[in-house]
């Protein structure tokens, strides 16, 4: 239950804004730590990378439009599909979801900022520099070309002697650092900073999904960091971790990569389902049914996803018993996914759906994701996977899951929360049209690829022979990809237009149930004038008064008057969100930027084998950390 606050009392607003806003000007921009600013930076940077990755995909499709095409050289083709996969996975999907989490979870749980705002800023700069470094390879000319999972020994020193793979490894490492830090923040935030009264059974499903995502990232990302570090050591100093001739094992890379890589799929999918739950609830006017089952499904997907990695390795010659176990485990993941799908269907059934753009994306999501789920079950069957693996059937499958299951929900979420981000509404007609164009384009692009795969078209081939009869389906697929690209451009264009010209949004345009809609759109720097307190799962719809003693309420009310201009937030207990203490957060600083820059310089030094640069960067990083730890800025 939240008081709807009429225009904030002027003096209160002033005092809070003084404490919480970022300083103006360029320095203010570089030193910003506010979760909303950082979150949006993640979102819009990721959208920029979406276009980079999308153009790469279109070039790949142009090359494949007909047999023996020579628009691209084999070299360029291998570089483009590698950069496409890497960009979409590491620079678009995960960061945009992190950005949405950073912006929205503090608002949904009714707090003023994330627990370590400077770490947040540091994470963003690492992501940005990692992404720029990775794409700098396009300028420098040695572009990674080993595929997005960079199997050894092809990615090792012998078969990839240029710097291309070092760009990949070091860029990815920086981005993964950002991911791990974001995960730490989200876990602490969601466990310790929920509004008083928001016990575990009242956490919005969007936040639950982000908690699961963050926990998975915290476990999965260090594995790929380790794998990358070992490979970089093999490349730079000849430590033969993956070199069979010297006693290493190339399958070690595959195991490590997929112990990360399979959860990675659910790291993207789980928050996407959280977005769907938020959108369905808001646009049907009904809470998601069977909340405990849905939460159980989220958590079990998170756990189970760590036990499925071998289904990416069904063709490497592992024993039958192992294949059987991983096959059945992979089938079983259909159950938690099914629970969520039917929970949304039941919610739509019991609610009153209002057919605005986000709901259309949700419908497209459900249909497409279910189809991707079916092909997922098929490829989880080892005998069939023998045919499907590394063929266009699998390419079709994972685009159904990643575009249908992740991108459509992200777009639903971007439209849904755009009023919160900007205070303006995107155009509904254009939004719906863009959804339709995307759905049509998507299925024209990817459905034929199932057929091509079973006809024998292997993945990652830059061309195919003329006498195979694959031209027609490939041409259809290429045509579809341009339709899909047009749909995406239309969607993003609508947002770009609405950002300045869209109609002003009311505070809560969808009459949604969660706390981000209880404050202004966009929210002030401090999010809420009065600390929200919660008595149910849908604070905006609940009518009960929260039960807290007068003393607690008084202490919470005092948060509206920052003590000595400090950034104060309330800390609550993990299970029942009882208020425990009030603590202050650090303010703006350029040190996160300095630290990220120095770290990137150090890693670039390693990349170009210029050790003075590496050592200088490392020294700078050390200095920035010391300065950072010396004064945390919590007390002004």
């Amino acid at each position, binding site marked *: 239950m939240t008081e709807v606050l009429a225009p904030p009392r002027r003096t209160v607003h002033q005092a809070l804004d003084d404490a919480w806003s970022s300083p103006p000007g360029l320095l203010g921009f570089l030193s910003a730590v506010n979760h909303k600013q950082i979150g949006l930076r993640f979102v819009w940077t990721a959208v920029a990378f979406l276009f980079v990755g999308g153009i790469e995909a279109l070039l790949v499709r142009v090359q494949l439009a007909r047999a023996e095409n020579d628009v691209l050289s*084999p*070299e360029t083709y291998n570089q483009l599909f590698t950069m496409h996969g890497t960009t979409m996975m590491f620079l678009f999907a995960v960061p945009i979801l992190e950005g949405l989490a950073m912006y929205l979870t503090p608002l949904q749980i009714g707090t003023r900022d994330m627990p370590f705002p400077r770490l947040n800023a540091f994470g963003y700069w690492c992501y940005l520099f990692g992404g720029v470094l990775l794409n700098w390879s396009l300028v420098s000319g040695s572009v990674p070309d080993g595929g997005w999972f960079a*199997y050894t020994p*092809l990615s090792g020193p012998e078969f990839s002697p240029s710097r291309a793979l070092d760009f990949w490894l070091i860029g990815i490492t920086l981005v993964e650092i950002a991911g791990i830090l974001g995960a730490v923040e989200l876990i602490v935030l969601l466990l310790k900073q929920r509004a008083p009264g928001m016990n575990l059974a009242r956490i919005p499903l969007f936040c639950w999904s982000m908690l699961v995502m963050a926990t998975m990232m915290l476990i999965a990302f260090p594995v790929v960091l380790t794998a990358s570090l070992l490979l970089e050591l093999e490349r730079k100093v000849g430590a033969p971790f993956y070199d*069979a001739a010297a006693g290493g094992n*190339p*399958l070690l890379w595959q195991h490590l990569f997929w112990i990360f890589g399979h959860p990675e799929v659910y790291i993207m999918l789980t928050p996407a389902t959280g977005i769907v739950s938020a959108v369905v609830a808001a646009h049907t*006017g009904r809470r998601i*049914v*069977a909340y405990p*089952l849905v939460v159980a*499904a989220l958590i079990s997907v998170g756990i189970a996803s760590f036990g499925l990695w071998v289904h990416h390795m069904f*063709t*490497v*010659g592992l024993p*039958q018993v192992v294949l*059987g176990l991983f*096959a*059945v485990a992979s*089938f079983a993941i259909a*159950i*938690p996914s*099914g*629970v*969520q799908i*039917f*929970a949304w*269907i*039941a*919610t*739509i*059934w*019991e*609610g*009153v*759906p209002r057919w605005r753009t986000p709901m259309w994306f949700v419908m497209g999501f*459900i249909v497409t994701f279910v189809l991707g789920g079916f092909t997922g*079950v*098929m490829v989880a*069957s*080892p*005998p*069939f996977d*023998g*045919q499907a693996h*590394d063929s266009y059937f699998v390419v079709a499958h994972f685009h159904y899951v990643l575009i249908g299951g992740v991108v459509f929900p992200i777009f639903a979420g971007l439209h849904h929360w755009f009023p919160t981000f900007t205070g303006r509404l995107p155009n509904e007609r254009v939004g719906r049209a863009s959804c339709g164009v995307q759905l049509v384009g998507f299925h024209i692009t990817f459905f034929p690829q199932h057929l091509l795969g*079973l*006809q*024998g*078209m*292997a993945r*990652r081939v*830059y*061309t*195919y*022979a003329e*006498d195979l*009869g694959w031209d*027609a*389906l490939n041409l259809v697929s290429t045509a579809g990809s341009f339709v899909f690209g047009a749909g995406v451009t239309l969607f993003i264009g609508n947002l770009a237009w609405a950002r300045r010209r869209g109609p002003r949004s009311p505070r809560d345009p969808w009459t949604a149930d969660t706390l981000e809609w209880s404050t202004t759109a966009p929210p002030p720097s401090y999010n809420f004038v009065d600390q929200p307190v919660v008595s149910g799962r849908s604070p905006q719809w609940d009518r009960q008064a929260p039960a807290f003693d007068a003393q607690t309420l008084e202490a919470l009310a005092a948060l509206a008057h920052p003590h000595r201009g400090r950034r104060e937030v309330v800390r609550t207990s993990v299970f029942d969100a009882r208020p425990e203490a009030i603590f202050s957060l650090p303010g703006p600083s350029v040190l996160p930027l300095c630290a990220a820059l120095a770290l990137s310089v150090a890693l670039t030094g390693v990349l170009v084998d210029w050790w003075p640069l590496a050592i200088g960067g490392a020294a700078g990083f050390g200095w920035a950390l010391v300065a950072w730890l010396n004064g945390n800025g919590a007390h002004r």
Partner: protein
Amino acid sequence: MSRRRGVVRGATVVVLWLLLTACAGEAGAWQPRSRQASIVLWLFWVMLGLAAVVFVLVVALLVRAARAGDPAGVAGDAGEQAAERRARRLVLGGGVLLPVVVLVPLSIATLTVAASLSHRVGPPALPIEVIGHQYWWEIRYPDHGVVTANEIHIPGGTPVELTLTTEDVIHSVWVPQLSGKVDMIPGEVTELRFEADTAGTYLGQCAELCGLQHARMRLHVVAEPLDRFEAWVARQAEPAAAPEPGSRAEAGAEVFVEAGCAACHTVRGTGAAGELGPDLTHVADRLYLGAGTLRNDRGQLAGWVANPHASKPGALMPPSSLEPEELLAVVDYLETLR
């Protein structure tokens, strides 16, 4: 209504057309020619059938849900509780019961098919060694002393066992009409076993990204009656016939050694004993050049020897600097290697 029906009809036509085109051309896994590939296709149809039933069910429920929209049903605490109960039934029925009902038989089918695929019965299989190289396949018949490349001849109806290894990076053998794929991993030995049930030439492809020319690392499996296979393997086991004395081919044999071809290629029965490239003892007998890149005829052969990179950029064989006369001599020579 009629507009919607028109859309449905249009979509049906499109889907049918796609399915028809899918069956045109060389049909891969759709047209299995071995017991192994046949049961996998059967498994696929079973899974597709189950998926179709579940898909229709889910979409029907979704459409029904989207049209239900009855605000009266939401009113009141009692209505709320009833709605939640209904919803929970749907979630448990659709989300738990339905997957279990579908997946238990599917698990049994999968494990049964997997067991059947690894089942070893019948006569001992013909052993064939396949060694992956960037970007071609070395083929050895250890029982017959035969070494060839990019073309596996097998007797139809007899089990063959391919032993898979690699010289460099990971490759993967995939001949969709005969079997699912199996990877070649450095430092490991993997196996692939099947028996072709129909004579024919089946296209295979490297299925694991192995570098620049992963696309043009193709393979052909020629299944033929036992007597023809035996004749083939006997011919392959012989050393190369010496070219006719005084012919241009004989000059070509000299060029072959002097120009450096022999540094990488073996021609059994001659001094050429290089080991980096394919064995050329019976190269003229093969269907294709450059691992399925070019048809093997005189013109293509000359083009390939002159500059393999014209058709296969990134191939490890360098372009040659032969004079035209030398080139023709080498081609003459290679054409005698039947």
